[in-house]
C-alpha cells in the first residue's frame, strides 16, 4: 500500500514539475504523451528529497514530499492563471500518408510488445541486474543509503574504492526512497525503475519526434531505439547508463521544443536545466554533458547577441543551480575522491603519449560500426544509408536548439575520448568494458537529432 502511494506521489511530482514548466499558452492537456514520457523527472525529485532528508525521520520525508508536490501544483496553477492572452497556439503536426502511417504504426506496435515482453522476461531472469556494476555499485550504494541509518556515509569511504564512492546518487537514492516506503530492500524496485527509464526513453523519442516532426518520424525513431539490442539488454541491467541517456535526451528534447514558436517559453528552458542537473546527479558523465550544453548555449547566446538569448539562458541556469549545489555538497563533503584525476603527473604523461590516442581512436571507429549488437546491418550504417536515400530536410527558420544540442553531443563524445586518454585504468580494459555503454548514453539523443534533421517520409514522397 505504501509503495503504491510512493509511486503515485513520484509520478504526480514528475508530472506537476513538467506541466509547471510547459508553455502556459498551450492547454494543460496538450502534448500529453510527451509530458508523461518526461514523468521520470519525478524519480529525480524523489532521489533529491531522500538525500536531503537522510538525517530526518520517515514522517519528515513524507511531509517534505507532500510539501514539494503542493508547491509544484501551486506553481502550476499560478503559471496557468497568468496565461498569455495569445490565442492557443496551433500544434504543428505532420500529416501522414495513410498506408505509410499504417505500416509504421503496425511495426511500431509489434516492436513495443516484443520489447516489453523481452524486457520483463530479462528482469525476471536477472532480478539483481546484469553484470558487476548493478550489484557492486548502484544497488550497493542504495543499500548503504537504506540500511545505513545515521552511518549511511560509511558506504562512500575510500575503504571500498572499487565501488566508486564518488558516483552521484540519483539512482541509489531514488531506489532507497522506494525501499523506505516498502519497508524492505526488494530487488524488484531497481528492476522496475530500470524498465520505467527504458520505456520512458522510447516514449520520449516517439512523442517528441511525433510532436515536432510528425508521427511517421516518431514511429521510425522509436523503432530504431527499440531495435538496438544493446539498449534493450542494458535497459534491464540496472546500470545507470539508460537513465543517464534518458536525462540527456530529455534536456535535448526540451531545448528543441524551444525552437517551435508555439512552445517558446522560459519554463521549458528551466526544465532543460533541471534535466541536465538530473543527468549530472546520475553519473559523472552527466557533469560533462551539463558543462558542454551550457557552453554550447553560451556560444549561441554570444553569436546571436545577448538580447535574443537572455530569456532562455537564465532560466536554464536557474534550473541547474540547485542541483549543482547538492552535487557539490555530495562530492566535497560526502564522497571519497574519485580515481580519475588523482595523479596530475600521470595524466600529463598520458596526454603526451601518442599511442593512447591511436588506440582510443581505433576503438571509437570500431564501435561506431559495431555499436548496438544489431542483427544483419549495424544501426549506424543503416541510419547513414537512410540519410543518403531520404535526404536532409530544408533548413528551418529557428533551429538553435537542434544546433546547440548537436554541438553539445559532439563535445560530450570528444570529452569521453579525452577521459580515455587520461584514464588511470588499463586503457584496453577500460575501453573494452565501458565504451559501448558510453555510446549508449548518447544513442537516444543521437536518434532524436537524426530524425529531426532528415526529411519525413511524407516530405520525401511529396518533394522528391
Amino acid at each position, binding site marked *: 500500500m505504501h509503495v503504491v502511494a510512493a509511486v503515485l506521489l513520484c509520478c504526480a511530482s514528475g508530472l506537476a514539475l513538467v506541466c509547471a514548466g510547459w508553455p502556459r499558452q498551450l492547454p494543460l492537456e496538450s502534448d500529453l504523451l510527451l509530458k508523461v514520457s518526461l514523468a521520470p523527472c519525478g524519480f529525480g525529485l524523489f532521489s533529491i528529497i531522500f538525500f536531503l532528508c537522510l538525517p530526518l525521520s520517515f514522517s519528515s520525508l513524507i511531509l517534505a514530499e507532500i510539501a514539494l508536490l503542493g508547491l509544484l501544483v501551486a506553481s502550476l496553477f499560478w503559471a496557468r492563471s497568468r496565461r498569455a492572452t495569445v490565442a492557443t497556439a496551433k500544434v504543428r503536426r505532420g500529416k501522414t500518408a495513410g498506408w505509410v502511417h499504417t505500416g509504421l504504426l503496425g511495426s511500431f506496435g509489434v516492436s513495443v510488445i516484443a520489447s516489453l515482453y523481452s524486457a520483463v522476461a530479462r528482469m525476471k531472469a536477472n532480478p539483481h541486474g546484469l*553484470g*558487476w556494476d548493478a550489484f557492486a555499485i548502484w544497488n550497493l550504494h542504495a*543499500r548503504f543509503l537504506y540500511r545505513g541509518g545515521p552511518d549511511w556515509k560509511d558506504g562512500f569511504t575510500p575503504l571500498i574504492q572499487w565501488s566508486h564512492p564518488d558516483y552521484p546518487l540519483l539512482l541509489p537514492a531514488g531506489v532507497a526512497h522506494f525501499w523506505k516506503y516498502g519497508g524492505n530492500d526488494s530487488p524488484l524496485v531497481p528492476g522496475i525503475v530500470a524498465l520505467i527509464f527504458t520505456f520512458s526513453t522510447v516514449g520520449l523519442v516517439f512523442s517528441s519526434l511525433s510532436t515536432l516532426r510528425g508521427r511517421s518520424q516518431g514511429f521510425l525513431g522509436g*523503432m530504431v531505439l527499440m531495435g538496438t539490442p544493446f539498449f534493450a539488454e542494458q535497459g534491464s541491467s540496472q546500470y545507470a547508463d539508460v537513465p543517464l541517456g534518458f536525462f540527456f535526451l530529455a534536456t535535448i528534447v526540451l531545448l528543441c521544443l524551444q525552437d517551435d514558436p508555439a512552445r517558446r517559453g522560459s519554463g521549458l528552458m528551466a526544465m532543460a536545466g533541471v534535466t541536465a542537473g538530473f543527468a549530472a546527479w546520475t553519473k559523472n558523465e552527466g557533469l560533462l554533458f551539463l558543462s558542454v550544453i551550457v557552453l554550447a548555449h553560451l556560444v549561441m547566446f554570444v553569436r546571436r547577441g545577448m538580447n535574443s538569448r537572455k530569456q532562455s539562458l537564465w532560466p536554464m541556469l536557474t534550473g541547474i543551480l540547485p542541483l549543482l549545489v547538492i552535487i557539490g555538497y555530495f562530492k566535497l563533503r560526502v564522497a571519497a575522491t574519485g580515481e580519475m584525476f588523482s595523479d596530475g603527473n600521470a595524466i600529463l604523461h598520458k596526454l603526451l603519449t601518442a599511442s593512447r590516442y591511436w588506440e582510443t581512436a581505433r576503438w571509437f571507429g570500431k564501435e561506431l560500426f559495431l555499436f548496438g549488437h544489431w542483427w544483419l546491418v549495424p544501426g549506424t550504417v543503416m541510419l547513414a544509408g537512410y540519410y543518403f536515400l531520404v535526404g536532409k530536410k530544408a533548413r528551418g527558420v529557428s533551429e538553435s536548439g537542434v544546433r546547440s544540442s548537436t554541438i553539445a553531443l559532439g563535445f560530450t563524445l570528444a570529452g569521453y575520448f579525452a577521459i580515455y586518454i587520461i584514464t588511470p585504468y588499463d586503457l584496453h580494459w577500460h575501453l573494452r568494458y565501458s565504451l559501448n555503454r558510453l555510446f549508449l548514453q548518447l544513442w537516444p539523443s543521437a536518434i532524436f537529432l537524426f530524425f529531426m534533421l532528415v526529411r519525413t517520409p511524407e516530405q520525401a514522397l511529396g518533394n522528391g
Partner: protein
Amino acid sequence: MQSWIPPPELRETTAPPHHIRILITVAATALLCLLSTLRLLTGPLGALPLQDPTREIARHADERFADMRRALPKRGVVGYIGDSGQTSLADYYSAQYALAPLLVERSINHSLVIGNFPASQPPMPALADKNLCLVRDFQNGLFLFAKKDNN
C-alpha cells in the same frame, strides 16, 4: 495511328522512381528494426553468458550470508579473506553487497575477519600463523575468524 495517352488518374498510379526508392528505404529500415527487436525474443535472456560468475552470485548472496549477517555487528568494518580462484572478486563483492551497511575490507588487519571459501577449505594453518582463530563455521563455505590478540 495516334498513340494512346493514359488519362490523368491512370498516370498517377505509376509512382515516380524516387517514390519507390523512398518507400523501399522506409520499409527496409522498419523491417531491419523489427527483425532486430524480434530477435531479442529468441536470444538468451541477458547479455552475460550463463557461466558468468556475477549472474548467480548476486542472486544468492543475501540467502547465503543471512546467518553471518545476524552474527556480525550492524555497523563498522570487518576484514575479508576468500578463495583465490576465478570468482574471487565476485565472491568478495557479493559479501559486501549482502552485508552492507557493514564495511567489508579485503584485508585481515581487523579484529573480525570473514572467510569466504565456497570452492575450497580455508587454509587453517596459514590463518593460524596470522593469529586468526575460527569463531564459527556457517557450514556453507562461510567462516568467521577473530584476531587472537584482540580476544
